[in-house]
């Protein structure tokens, strides 16, 4: 038998010998937005994000998506106003895409370029720092995306004629698991 034939037979029998993509799935997440009014602060939390990462040839692509209406600030009226202000009826999802070298998994701090789609706009955030910890088979990622209302052309809502601050940072806590 030729060497090529034997190799092909081995690869068919034992698929793991072939070069394969590695995948990661978002297992748990907590996304928290923070809004500042002159007289008070408000936070809204979502645990409903879905995400996937695929690594191939030393490069990894990640996609994370969360429904705008999944954020809960503790008051349904405020949540509905938020949904309206960020055009959530027309653009119900927030998506984040990033591309990282596979070697980033060995670093405790990862600087990622993010492409964020939200409220019908696409904005790039460069070199956003995320803390990275590996616990068993899970990877914990935490960081803050410095989102602003102006970036997404969102009119700042007002409370008693006082507008909310332009900065609406999003705190991200994610647990990823290898598939």
């Amino acid at each position: 038998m030729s060497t090529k034939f034997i190799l092909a037979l081995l690869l068919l029998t034992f698929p793991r010998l072939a070069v394969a993509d590695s995948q990661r799935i978002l297992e748990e997440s907590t996304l928290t937005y923070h809004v500042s009014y002159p007289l008070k602060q408000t936070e809204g939390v979502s645990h409903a994000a879905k995400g996937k990462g695929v690594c191939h040839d030393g490069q990894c692509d990640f996609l994370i998506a969360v429904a705008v209406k999944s954020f809960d600030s503790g008051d349904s009226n405020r949540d509905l106003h938020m949904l309206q202000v960020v055009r959530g009826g027309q653009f119900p999802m927030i998506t984040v895409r990033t591309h990282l070298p596979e070697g980033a998994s060995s670093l405790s701090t990862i600087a990622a370029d993010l492409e964020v789609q939200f409220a019908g706009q696409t904005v790039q955030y460069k070199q956003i720092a995320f803390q990275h910890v590996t616990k068993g088979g899970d990877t914990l990622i935490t960081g803050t995306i410095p989102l602003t209302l102006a970036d997404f052309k969102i009119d700042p809502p007002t409370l008693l004629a006082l507008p909310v601050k332009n900065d609406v940072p999003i705190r991200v806590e994610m647990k990823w698991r290898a598939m």
Partner: protein
Amino acid sequence: MFSLQDLGISSEQAQGTAADQARLDKRSHMLKLHQRFGLIATVPLIASVATSFGAGGRSTSTADRWTHLALGSATGDLYFISAYFAIRAPRIPGTQSHGQIRVHKALVWIHGPGMILTPILGAIAFDQKSKGEKVHGIASAHGAVAIVTAAAYSAAIVSVSFKF
């Protein structure tokens, strides 16, 4: 590159509609008007409470009593305009009230009937005074009903203004 479908998110979930956004816009617009008229109504409300102390007296007709009546009427008009916008604001399917907004909505069961009863009792009291009578019977409850109504109304405003 992969898509939202790879995450198990259907195209229906990922796609919004202009109609949904228009409904949200209309709801927000009407509730802003509800808020605006509701806040404006506090001005004649406070003034009518302030003028209530001079609205009694023995005279069959006093300027204070007419002023109190006018301010009370203005309060009632603004209140019901505000209520109209709250009642007619579109509901968003699939949402349930939770948080302090529930307190705001619950208080309507006090200030709503109060804003109907207060002017009715006030009209009876006004009529009795105009005839030179002492305010008596059910009309004597006008003051107490008005105070409870004003308190519930104020609490309704506070419930959506501050975080507890």
